[in-house]
């Protein structure tokens, strides 16, 4: 996994609540057996005017001029500003894969759905939760300021606005450590293989029907 330490990135706003993972990456693209290449189909149904299918040349498809991420000022954005319950619905990890492949490294919003939040950390994508009033202020500032950027420092757990205001955020220490170091959590878990084996052996004796 790619490590995340600091980021100074252009911010794109997606001003709607309950953005679900079907919207982030529609089902027809889930037929892929790869982890990469989902970026051109991120938000496919909002982003293009035609119906997207796997294997299409996305550069030739008609873009929806009304979709915010298609605006010139947000090209190259690496931070997505979101609203409540972002990433709800399906557990598809293709959603963070698509966002990461699109170029996003961090998401800043009021709340994220549990499975999506978890999946993001596994892919070097940092979801940051801030209070609603701060998110409202960020939406207003982004709208008013072309080229609006935020600085994110994971080690210090702070987001710094262009006007110098510093916003602190919470993150689980374990997740933070993994993300800062780009650690593969399977490797970490396997360091405890003996404990897992001992647990399993005990369970096998106590509830043998689970091991039939």
């Amino acid at each position, binding site marked *: 996994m790619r490590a995340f330490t600091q980021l100074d990135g252009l911010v794109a706003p997606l001003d709607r609540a309950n953005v679900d993972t*079907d919207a982030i990456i529609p*089902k027809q693209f889930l037929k892929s057996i*790869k982890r990469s290449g989902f970026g051109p189909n991120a938000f496919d149904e909002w982003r293009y005017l035609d119906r997207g299918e796997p294997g299409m040349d996305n550069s030739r498809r008609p873009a929806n001029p009304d979709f915010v991420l298609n605006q010139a000022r947000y090209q190259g954005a690496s931070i997505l500003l979101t609203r409540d319950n972002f990433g709800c*619905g399906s*557990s598809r990890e293709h959603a963070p894969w698509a966002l990461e492949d699109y170029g996003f490294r961090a998401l800043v919003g009021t709340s994220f759905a549990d499975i999506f939040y978890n999946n993001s950390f596994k892919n070097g994508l940092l979801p940051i939760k801030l209070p609603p009033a701060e998110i409202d202020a960020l939406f207003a500032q982004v709208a008013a300021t072309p080229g609006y950027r935020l600085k994110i420092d994971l080690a210090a757990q702070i987001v710094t606005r262009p006007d110098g205001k510093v916003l602190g955020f919470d993150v689980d*220490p374990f997740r933070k450590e993994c993300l800062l170091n780009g650690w593969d959590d399977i490797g970490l878990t396997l360091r405890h293989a003996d404990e897992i084996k001992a647990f399993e052996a005990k369970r096998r004796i106590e509830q043998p029907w*689970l091991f039939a």
Partner: protein
Amino acid sequence: MPQTLYDKLWQSHVVRTEADGTALLYIDRHLVHEVTSPQAFEGLKIAGRKPWRISSIVATADHNTPTDHWERGIEDPVSRQQVETLDANIREVGALAYFPFKDARQGIVHVVGPENGATLPGMTVVCGDSHTSTHGAFACLAHGIGTSEVEHVLATQCLLQKKMKSMLVRVDGKVGAGVTAKDIVLAIIGRIGTAGGTGYAIEFGGAAIRALSMEGRMTVCNMAIEAGARVGFVAVDDTTIDYLKGRSFSPTGEAWDRAVAHWRTLVSDAGAKFDAVVEIDAATIRPQVTWGTSPEMVVPVDGSVPAPEDFADPVKREGVTRALQYMGLTPRTPISEIAVDQVFIGSCTNSRIEDLREAAAVAKGRTKAVSVRRVLVVPGSGLVKQQAEAEGLDRIFVSAGFEWREPGCSMCLAMNADRLEPGERCASTSNRNFEGRQGNGGRTHLVSPAMAAAAAISGHFTDVRKFPRVS
């Protein structure tokens, strides 16, 4: 100290805990399907790792499989490759059970697991699918997981997880005739919202939940995720134990007795404390219909479509405006005046035998409205299909002009050929009414199986409580 069921399920699976509370949770059952597993198997192979415990794996192909013309195989080459990749991975790795495409026991993973007794009380169950919460109906701690976690569980038999807060949703009293498990869970989501359960493990309790069959409890737990909760569950009682007796992977003989004695402990202790409690009076629940693009956008069938000005919060108001536009609905339209183009009866929410019986009871002796283009009835598994045919339900559906299909996820998420066309409106027994969920531009209204059948016959939503039955 009295413990909640969640405390018991959690504690009995913790292998170790990190300083910040992140735990390694031992996983008893790993359900696998073709969409979210290929990258996990590939990752395992690249890292040179082996699956930890093959006998924990139960696999089936469901999302991509067609629901008709099985003799033609899977015609979409991309879908076919994904299903064949699962075949190859299971062939290489092994599993306790694999129900491939066309197998007599193939079906939706969340239907197949329980009906084969592969889901047992007290288990931790995972699957790369958010509707894994379904298995909570058996007092399991059942988590939907992402593909990285599928790989993690394959390699380590554990899931990294922090303990959630606990919520009790207590539905007391008795539901009226024509009100089903689907209506109960939609009413719950309408009450607490799609993010109401975020960060919580939900226990569903109360007399109205106790009165449900296992099929009904699975419907309720299935949609816990639509309330934001990754896990939802119901305590063990006689209904649970009666359901499990004699299933393929259920224990037998002395092991059965030992298992039952243990299962009986899988209830919240009297006086156990929850972080949140939601109480709902079952008698107030009417048949539900969603009108918008989030499951929380739901009203009773005798209600009407709301207007943006009904909502004070500006973000919510904007969401309602957008949903009305997408759904092509005018505020204040009575729900019963909304006409449908297609009807879908199926999905891991409502494709079990009891669901099909409820739909058939409404469809019996009737014919679908001419204005309804297509009614799909998709059983949840080959075993459900067999049972339904043995009961003659298929003949009722076909006589009514409904299409009786092969099992699979089908138009719940439209990964196969079953989908809505842009602008088409559907009464669906599935779980998500998101934009484009059932096909680009499609408009989904979530309802119970009986309500879906009634809409198919009337051509529009209609209150199933007043719907005349042909005996």
